[in-house]
């Protein structure tokens, strides 16, 4: 039902024709809508107090309620609602004052009550947006409309054991009742790259909000893609039947599956000419190893879920003041941060993206360094180049890094000292590496910045000292002087190496400049 509505909506939207599949001769647009199920990071389940911890022994995180025992009654977990509300507000959704719970009814062994508590006609939010863009310019920045985001409980897990010629199924109900936020997009996505960007941006937002760990391996983030093609033919516009693709276990799988499915639908279209409405909506599963989608047997006559309001639960009332409060508490979100880093701090879009994608803690670190040093550009450069490199090498988190090694204060001090010349820029990276290498268990053990500087013998070299050194080197290397005079300026490089050996604190650029100046003045020439 919902997918048909999407289709109608998208008819009125301007259809953007983008040919991303090069082998296709005819123009078509791939129209994609995504349904994302996000497991909310609550301690306990949506309607009982069982733990939501992943990986426990099967059926150990259950109670009479989540195994559907007679007489049990659900009580809403307020934390789950609050996390959902936070997400919906961050997605710019409308939050109605009144939302209710409905029962979605079907029979399946991993659904012990015979119904799933979900939200049907009055979801907790609707009508949001998520902006996507691509720093590699694969597509134009665009706003993806969010149809709705609603809360529901997860079902259990069926484990089919078909070994030994048996067809036994085992059910693990640990997951039953885990809170899920289903975020449904409008069919506004037009290519696998856009779909991937949408998912990445959504995941980043969820991570910033701290509402989910978004771990796809553990099923904390699940994606279904609704895909069809809009084609321009001689006899006008047409669309292929919508296919829902399930079993997408990574963003890469989403990209590949959509790409495959578009090609498949195009072939079927050429063979059959079947249009939307001429075939029922189909569900296909993605086979990652084979790289194909396969038709799935539709669930036992499941088309009619007989939704009705759950009489065991009371509606949830959310007043505009509460929504405003949530909005005010969100903090700066990825899109706004990227914007600030490019416009205020002069970062390239690419660097801003790199930084923001690393998560809120690293951005906060960077912003603190920028603030303390008064040099945002240097702060960003140090973080994107040196800090990220060290984190990757050491496999540490930014939290560990700043606590055990280089605090935002330390890095800010380094930047300031380099700027003032107290620390020769030639030795700044070496100094940073030493600081980054040390792992202090306690604050008391920690060497001060000055102590590290001292231990490395770093000191400012004044210009007269440098001139003396250059003169000495030029006098000892008449060949090089001659080479330079004959136009081979690069020959001066050998002198820089020697200078650094004599005094590691010298600035190579300065040595080069001074030497060339001295040669120009005629110093060291064979008279």
């Amino acid at each position: 039902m919902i997918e048909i509505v999407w289709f109608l909506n998208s008819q009125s939207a301007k259809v953007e024709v983008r040919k991303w599949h090069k082998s296709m001769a005819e123009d078509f647009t791939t129209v994609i809508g995504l349904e994302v199920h996000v497991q909310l990071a609550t301690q306990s389940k949506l309607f009982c107090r069982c733990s939501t911890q992943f990986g426990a022994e099967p059926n150990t995180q259950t109670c009479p309620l989540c195994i559907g025992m007679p007489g049990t009654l659900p009580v809403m977990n307020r934390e789950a609602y609050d996390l959902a509300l936070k997400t919906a507000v961050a997605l710019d959704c409308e939050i109605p004052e009144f939302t209710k719970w409905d029962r979605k009814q079907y029979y399946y062994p991993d659904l012990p009550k015979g119904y799933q508590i979900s939200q049907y006609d009055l979801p907790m939010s609707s009508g949001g947006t998520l902006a996507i863009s691509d720093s590699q310019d694969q597509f134009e920045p665009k706003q993806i409309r969010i149809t709705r985001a609603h809360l529901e409980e997860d079902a259990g897990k069926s484990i089919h054991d078909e070994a030994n010629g048996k067809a036994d199924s085992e059910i693990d109900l640990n997951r039953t009742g885990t809170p899920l936020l289903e975020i449904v997009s409008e069919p506004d996505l037009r290519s696998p790259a856009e779909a991937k960007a949408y998912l990445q941006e959504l995941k980043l937002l969820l991570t910033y909000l701290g509402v989910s760990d978004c771990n796809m391996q553990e099923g904390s983030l699940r994606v279904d893609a609704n895909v069809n093609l809009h084609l321009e033919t001689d006899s006008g516009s047409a669309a292929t039947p919508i296919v829902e693709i399930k079993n997408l276990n990574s963003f890469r799988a989403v990209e590949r599956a959509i790409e495959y499915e578009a090609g498949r639908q195009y072939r079927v279209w050429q063979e059959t000419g079947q249009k939307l409405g001429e075939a029922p909506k189909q569900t296909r599963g993605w086979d990652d190893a084979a790289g194909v989608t396969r038709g799935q047997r539709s669930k036992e006559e499941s088309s009619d879920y007989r939704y009705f309001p759950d009489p065991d639960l009371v509606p949830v009332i959310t007043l505009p003041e509460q929504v405003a409060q949530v909005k005010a508490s969100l903090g700066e979100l990825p899109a706004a941060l990227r914007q600030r880093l490019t416009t205020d701090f002069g970062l390239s879009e690419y660097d801003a993206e790199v930084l923001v994608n690393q998560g809120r803690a690293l951005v906060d670190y960077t912003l603190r360094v920028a603030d303390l040093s008064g040099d945002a550009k240097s702060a960003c450069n140090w973080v994107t180049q040196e800090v990220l490199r060290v984190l990757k090498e050491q496999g540490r988190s930014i939290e560990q890094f700043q606590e055990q090694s280089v605090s935002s204060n330390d890095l800010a001090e380094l930047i300031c000292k380099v700027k003032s010349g107290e620390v020769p820029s030639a030795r700044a990276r070496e100094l940073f590496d030493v600081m980054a290498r040390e792992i202090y268990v306690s604050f008391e053990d920690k060497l001060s910045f000055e102590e590290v500087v001292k231990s490395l013998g770093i000191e400012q070299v004044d210009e007269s000292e440098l001139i003396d050194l250059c003169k000495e080197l030029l006098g000892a290397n008449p060949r090089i002087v001659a080479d330079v005079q004959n136009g081979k300026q690069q020959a001066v490089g050998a002198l820089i190496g020697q200078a650094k050996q004599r005094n590691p604190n010298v600035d190579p650029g300065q040595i080069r400049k001074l030497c060339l100046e001295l040669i120009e003045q005629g110093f060291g020439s064979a008279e």
Partner: protein
Amino acid sequence: MELLSLLSAGEITSVEVTQGYLDQISAEDGAVGAFLHADVDLALSKAAEVDRRRQANEPLGRLAGLPVAVKDVLCDTQMPATCASRMLENFRPPYDSTVVAKLKEADAVLIGRTNMDEFAMGGSTENSAYQLTRNPWDLERAPGGSSGGAAACVAARMAPLSIGTDTGGSIRQPAGLCGVVGLKPTYGRVSRYGLVAFASSLDQVGPLALNVADAALLLETIAGHDPLDSTSLDEPLPAYSTLVERPLEGLRLGIVREHFAEGLNPEVEEAVRAAVAVYESLGATVKEISLPHSKYAVATYYVIAPSEASSNLARYDGIHYGHRTDISAMQAELATEQKAFLAAGDQIAVDNMDSPLVRMYRRTRAEGFGSEVKRRIMLGTYALSAGYYDAYYLKALKVRRLIRQDFDAAFEEVDLIAGPVTAEPAFKLGQMSGDPLAMYLVDLYTVSANLAGLPGISLPCGFTTSGLPIGLQLQAAPLAEETLIRGARMFEQATDWHQRRPEKKQS
């Protein structure tokens, strides 16, 4: 309560009281069939414990040592909870319902589990999968239902107090037909946690007793807000057991025009009108009121209740607990079917055969449920189906709102509404078994209170010439249980209908 005073005064022990009721059960229940399960040892050991603690001057609960019977639909870790269904024949709940927990906290002696219509669906207790319950006033007649065992055990003095549930009249109607007091509280007044659901938006737990004061005491014990039930009301709980003795002054009593329409048994009408006259003699003013939408109440009820039931009973699928069909028999059945289709060369039939899972569901539910439960599951499934939802379920919800509005308007003008509980006194066993619709119409006067969420009480107000009890129903505004019991007690104090008892049924 007299028995409670004797117990607390130490003039009688709980073991003596409990043994007395157990003896009465042995003597009478063979004929009446009110109990599905009675655990003599458990009851006596609880009684002995209370006696010991009383001896030691330890603090004791409100009902200390007093036997209470519980309808077999409320979970109790120490008892089965079959709901009178084959589906839950061997079900032992792993947790206590809030009502049972409160009774245990009150140190009541839970003496046994009473018979009922399967999953509380019915008005005669004939839908029990296990046994018939007979009306103690006439063993050829039904005790009413679905709390038939709960009412019959009190009427036959096999328990001084009992717990029933009322979804469309299931406490008030059997109380009326058995000549005892039965009270359905406001929806949300008593926790539904641990009550095996029939229709969640209508179900309510309530007390049955020999008089209004005892019912008030039991209500006070089990009522109150429960965080485990989201629909439970967080409202102050009046001290019903003491307030009950204060008569209402200036009582405004409403008589519903529609209640005295065609179809009301003349003896019942006479008794109810006489009861109204008693109120007038006690100083009440009587006013005729109208509940124009009440004529739609039964139809509305039989859309909403089965809709919710069809969903609530989906969980009995043979997977996780409860009855499951014999799997090898099921597999053999499928194999035979397939063979026959193949022999006939009917490949389409082979392709359309049930999967083993679907056949397991079908057989499990076909075997586990009785016909009335199946009928209601089908009614509800139909009413909620795509294409019918608006015409049935949604419309029923709208009418339900109108029914509530009728009552809201009525309670602007009157404090209590008085009327019959049922149109007829107790009917013969089997009399309506072939006619489900006639059975549904028995709820005519009681379902409105469930749809509107109001409290209602049934109390004895007379007898037919053939000696069958007649019940008076009083209804009050939501949360006005205090008015309800004080008004009911006034009548009881002025009459002695509640003191009559059926002859002993020595078997």
